[in-house]
């Protein structure tokens, strides 16, 4: 099984630790994983701003970089969802469909394809789990509180394999953090208020770390935590699952 590692642009530039953890954990699990060096961005920032028609270049590049793999895995629910919903190729529509079917968000690749049952990780801390909306409501990584349907959580099932971890309950289990791509600057007042409220829920419930499947939400909450001088840290879920 040959896996292409898709690292979203902001993770590449700002959170190499999250990307390294993904790579190392996949390698530990025996996966032949390669990072195509010419990748840039999935195109979501433009598309969500109403400029999907400008994402042709990003689409072509993504297809060029990743079509040769059995699976493509990326540590971001949001970018993966964008590609699954919008990746297209005008001249060869099938190539885009085939590729988006092979595309997995990191935790769901572990639970659904590798069917991981145990992990050698230990993380003796209180951790709050942020349900990133696009991963949760878009990719159905976990059940949504709005629906009358059975509980499940793919990221949660993996975190439960980690020794000595204590997952803290939240008052609002799956409220958005307010990042929202360009929303975070275009609607600065509401965005930062949403971020403050989300962080407060984790702090109030005693979290020492906030984790999730999307570094963008975590970056937003980290920005707020820093500003407040909090010692609480954010970690991508891969960094916890890849722990000692």
């Amino acid at each position: 099984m040959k896996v292409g590692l898709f690292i979203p642009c902001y993770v590449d530039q700002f959170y190499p630790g999250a990307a390294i953890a993904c790579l190392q954990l996949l390698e530990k699990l025996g996966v032949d994983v390669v990072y195509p060096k010419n990748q840039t961005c999935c195109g979501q920032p433009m598309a969500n701003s109403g400029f999907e028609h400008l994402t042709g270049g990003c689409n072509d590049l993504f297809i060029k970089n990743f079509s040769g793999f059995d699976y493509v895995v990326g540590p971001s629910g949001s970018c993966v969802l964008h590609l699954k919903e919008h990746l297209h190729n005008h001249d060869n529509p099938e190539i885009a469909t085939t590729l988006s079917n092979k595309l997995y968000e990191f935790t769901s690749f572990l639970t659904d394809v590798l069917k991981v049952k145990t992990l050698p990780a230990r993380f003796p801390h209180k951790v709050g789990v942020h349900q990133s909306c696009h991963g949760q409501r878009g990719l159905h990584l976990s059940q949504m509180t709005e629906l009358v349907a059975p509980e499940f959580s793919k990221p949660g099932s993996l975190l439960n394999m980690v020794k000595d971890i204590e997952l803290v309950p939240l008052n609002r289990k799956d409220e958005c953090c307010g990042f929202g791509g360009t929303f975070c600057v275009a609607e600065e007042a509401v965005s930062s208020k949403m971020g403050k409220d989300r962080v407060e829920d984790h702090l109030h419930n005693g979290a020492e770390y906030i984790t999730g499947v999307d570094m963008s939400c975590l970056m937003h909450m980290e920005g707020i935590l820093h500003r407040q001088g909090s010692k609480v840290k954010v970690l991508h879920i891969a960094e916890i699952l890849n722990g000692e």
Partner: protein
Amino acid sequence: MSEIQNTTNHADLAEVFNNDEARVDWHDETLWWIRSKRDVAVNKISNWEVLRETASQIKHNVLSNLNNYLQQFESNALSNGITVHWAADAKEHNQIVLSILEKHSIGQMVKSKSMLTEECHLNDFLEANGINVIDSDLGERIVQLAKEMPSHIVLPCIHKKKEEIGELFHQHLGTPAGNADPQFLTETARQHLRDTFLTRRAALTGVNFAIAETGEFVVCTNEGNADMGAHLADVHIASMGIEKIIPERKHLGVFLRLLTRSATGQPITTYSSHFKRPNKGKEMHIIIVDNGRSIQLGREDFRNSLKCIRCGACMNTCPVYRRSGGHSYHNAISGPIGSILAPNLDMEKYADLPFASTLCGSCTNVCPVKIDIHQQLYKWRQVIVKNGYVPAAKKASMQIMDWTLSSPTAYHTAGKAGRFVLKYAPFMVNNKLNPWYKHRDMPEPPKESFGEWYKKNRK
């Protein structure tokens, strides 16, 4: 309020709302409490998701056969003795109401809740034509006294604290200054409205459901005010949008089970009243209004928005609505559903609304008729940009971003030159002194990117 009326951009209005953080917290908690009540109520129905799907499919059928159902409804209503009027737009609707009142020389009217009349700005029109209108829904009455628009379709004065309502009642209804006891204020409104009900010869109501099979219509209220108004008046006028049709009476149960559980967490509205024919010596009129709905019906990506039964669940769950208030949407219908309906009426004026969302998708999940609200917000963004209703600076920055991200060389150079992503995506848009910084710190740039690390450590 003057501050709010001077500007018509959601982000600016939301910023004003956020100047009072304690108020934002109160507004957010109040609406979240209703969302939580909704969750408790819907979890008591084990086949809730089946019910939603059923309602969605019934409405699908309605939208696909709307012309036939409307004609069927008209013909049955006529044989029931109801007078049926057709209005192409708000102006025609308002004119029809006025002509009915003028025909009977009526100068005063009582009106129960109708978002359609808000959409048509009926009150302003009638006032300008010398007709006195009193809203009989308590929340509507409060915003009417305050000379404001409703901020929520189900809870019109949810933005007002009880102390502010006490002050309004003190000014307009003569209650003692400083009395903000909800029970006392409600009783005052009740006594005041009782007189209105007894003296008005005309009553206008909305329509929740119009049944094609029988030619009857159903009005849902919690206060019984629609019934009180309609039964005591000589002339009952009911205004409905063309999308309010359901095919048969048996379908009503599906919607009544969904409506108030979604809206407030109650099992059913206190009054679900059926109106089928006028009482002897009285008149009953229905005005069937298009006002842009058939244009929306023709927009393939957006036609499902016409399934809406106006429960307000999308507003209660929306983390943006809860923290920006209904007035920030500068439209009669606010929140997520308002943001997909409004651009159909005026794309330029409401170009900001589809962007007033993080696309979190919670609205779509609570919607009792399964409108894909957040997908439609995304699609409206594309339509609005293609139609040119977007600031030139944003367009230019997006083109630079496209160029950079389409080229690995440009991307890597830009990254090295100062972490491209931080400078441009998604922080680049409207970068007036970088709004990110106002309440949030930037991430600390690492020594090297993952790409650089990989080159050194693998292969």
